[in-house]
């Protein structure tokens, strides 16, 4: 036994020593190079960081911005940069792209850690998050109240930015909603464009049943795990998940009750194709499975992806809820640009945004033409770009229509706890769809919400 082990050991030592030497030298080499590189990297970033703190940044006039879609909001910044450079030739902008959820997480971590050197000068904020950020991190975002002429923007968009008489940030894109529809399917079912104007949701369901019967196509999609439709319905009735003073808005809210009634009616009627994610949702209309899509104006790009469907689409106002004050217009999504109060280039960043996205018709015309983005800057609405007719939509001047509808969108306060309220609703939604008593369900949602925001 002992001898065997001894032999084995010698073997290992010989073989091992050889391989080990080889191994170790490679290892040493690689880690040396690597740590050298790493050290270079950190040294570089240190000098860069140091320069940022002192004269370097204000001298070089380099503004850093975080955005989440290089072909949309990132591209918008590039347009703004070009415009601003005409008068400020030494202006420099760096856009850092990341996923929207990643951006939010990074922002929260930086702000919570109180670390300034990692933050950009300009940041894109999703509208429902505005109040949340401003109240959770006081004195963090720059006040824009006198920097931009807000009377030139759609009021509902400005309302979202106003907190305690101060206005934070520059309104950017909007998600004014429309009902995209397949003209061919609806025609086949016996409906004309006029039949879709200013209808109620109950009428929509009736039409949907006809369409389903005559063409075999679904009227729309439904995804119980996504709050897009309920949000659209609520805002079209001038209401929201929470009240302006951040209380749950479920019990004794006629708009909420009607929203959920309509939602369940659509689900029960069988006119909606169930989908479980974004790609399925997009796929349903790209492959011609549904006759209508109720969505924000930014959906135009995805709809136009199916080039074979050119000329077969139209857009009508969305249907309306059967409650007082409800309109045929709403909004889905949208974002605004904020400047960080602690930024070394605060004034430059504010000036840049105010002169471009905050007050240039040319910016919005180019943003629409180049990226299909629609803003809420009213002077741009009468421009040629907004009036152009779209061949894909059968010659309809869709952007003119969308901007017209955007003026009717009810202004609401998005409050601080929108996401908590949406999740509370989502928790109960399966029960509602299974036929639970709506009053009880609303009571449960309200209770869950209050539990969450204590």
């Amino acid at each position, binding site marked *: 036994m002992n001898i065997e*082990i001894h032999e084995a050991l010698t073997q290992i030592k010989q073989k091992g020593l050889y391989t080990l030497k080889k191994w170790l030298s490679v290892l040493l080499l690689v880690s040396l190079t*690597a740590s050298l590189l790493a050290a270079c990297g950190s040294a570089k*970033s240190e000098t860069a960081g140091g320069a940022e703190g002192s004269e370097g940044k204000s001298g070089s006039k380099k503004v850093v911005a975080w955005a989440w879609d290089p072909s*949309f909001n990132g591209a918008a910044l590039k347009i703004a940069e070009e415009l601003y450079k005409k008068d400020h030739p030494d202006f420099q902008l760096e856009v850092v792209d*990341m*996923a929207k*959820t990643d951006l939010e*997480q990074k922002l929260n971590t930086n702000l919570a850690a109180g670390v300034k050197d990692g933050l950009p000068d300009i940041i894109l904020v999703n509208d429902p998050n505005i109040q949340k950020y401003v109240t959770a991190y006081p004195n963090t975002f720059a006040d824009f109240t006198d920097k931009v002429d807000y009377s030139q923007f759609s009021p509902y968009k400005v309302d979202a930015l106003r907190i305690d008489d101060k206005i934070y940030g520059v309104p950017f894109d909007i998600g004014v909603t429309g009902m995209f529809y397949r003209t061919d399917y609806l025609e086949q079912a016996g409906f004309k464009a006029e039949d879709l104007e200013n209808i109620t949701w109950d009428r929509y369901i009736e039409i949907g049943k006809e369409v389903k019967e005559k063409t075999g196509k679904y009227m729309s999609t439904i995804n119980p795990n996504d709050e897009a439709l309920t949000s659209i319905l609520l805002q079209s009735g001038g209401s929201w998940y929470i009240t302006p003073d951040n209380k749950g808005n479920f019990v004794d809210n006629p708009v909420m009750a009607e929203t959920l009634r309509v939602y369940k009616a659509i689900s029960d009627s069988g006119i909606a194709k169930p989908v479980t994610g974004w790609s399925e949702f997009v796929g349903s209309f*790209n492959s011609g499975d549904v006759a209508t899509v109720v969505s924000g104006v930014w959906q135009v790009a995805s709809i136009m992806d*199916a080039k074979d469907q050119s000329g077969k689409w139209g857009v009508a106002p969305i249907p309306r809820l059967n409650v007082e004050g409800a309109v045929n217009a709403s909004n889905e999504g949208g974002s605004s640009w904020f400047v960080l109060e602690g930024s070394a280039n605060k004034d430059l960043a504010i000036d840049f945004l105010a002169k471009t996205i905050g007050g240039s018709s040319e910016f919005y015309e180019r943003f629409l033409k180049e990226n299909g983005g629609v803003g809420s800057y009213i002077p741009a609405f009468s421009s040629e770009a907004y009036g152009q007719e779209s061949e894909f939509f059968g010659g309809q001047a869709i952007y003119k229509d969308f901007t017209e509808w955007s003026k009717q969108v009810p202004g609401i306060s998005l409050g601080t706890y929108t996401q908590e309220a949406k999740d509370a609703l989502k928790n109960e939604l399966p029960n509602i769809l299974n036929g639970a008593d709506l009053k009880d369900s609303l009571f449960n949602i309200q209770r869950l919400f209050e539990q969450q925001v204590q």
Partner: protein
Amino acid sequence: MKKASALGVHLFLMIVSAISLFPFLWMLIGMTNSSSDIVKGKFSFGSMLSENITKLLDMTTLGTAFWNSALIAVVGTLFTLILSSMAGYGFEIYRSRGKDRLFGLLMLSMMMPFAAVMIPLFRMFSRMGLLNSPTAVILPTITTAFMIFFFMQNTKSFPRELLQAGRVDGLNEWRLFTRVYMPTMKPTYAAAAIITFMNNWNNFLWPLIALQTQEKKTLPLIVSSLASSYNPDYGIIMVAIVVTTLPTVAIFFLLQKQFVQGMLGSVK
């Protein structure tokens, strides 16, 4: 071994392999199709491959990101292997009550969800002036309780007689570790290398927070931002996914021989 049971084993392994590989086949097919075809569930190869690749290269800083990812993963893995095996060896071979207690304590560190320690960690790296560098990404991963535990458990079956014999031969404790333990435990090192490389390569949350500028980004960050656009192009995303997946597969191919050939073939 009976023919029938061998057939059964093959059948079982084939089914498991098919289930495992199916999503990869789908990914490879997707890489050659347009976004709308992918969404429609087209299950045959298309002709969009070169277009998807060109678009991806145009849209992103893929090369830089690849290099950043590789640097972080390779350096991180090397350090982890050395430091974690040292500790695993120390904790198991020289067991003592004090070390057992320390080890138990270290284990707690892997039980904490990362999201909860991220903010203090971020603050710490900011104070150290290391943010936005590969060092910041590598440092917290260079020893993990998880890998120490792995080496410790594997060391339990390490034949200690070899150490005694080595001592008789006059090797000191460090040499025993580098000349006897390390070569003997090659299969363990190989498995640890694969797992660690993979974890570092796919690491997402911490690089996202610690890296700040575009040119420092790693591959997963690029893929994540591609997938979240308003109008995502799945063809391009599929190419990016394949690019992200390939190196881990390569490492696996490179190292798998090490842990399946058997380590003590010479000791009978």
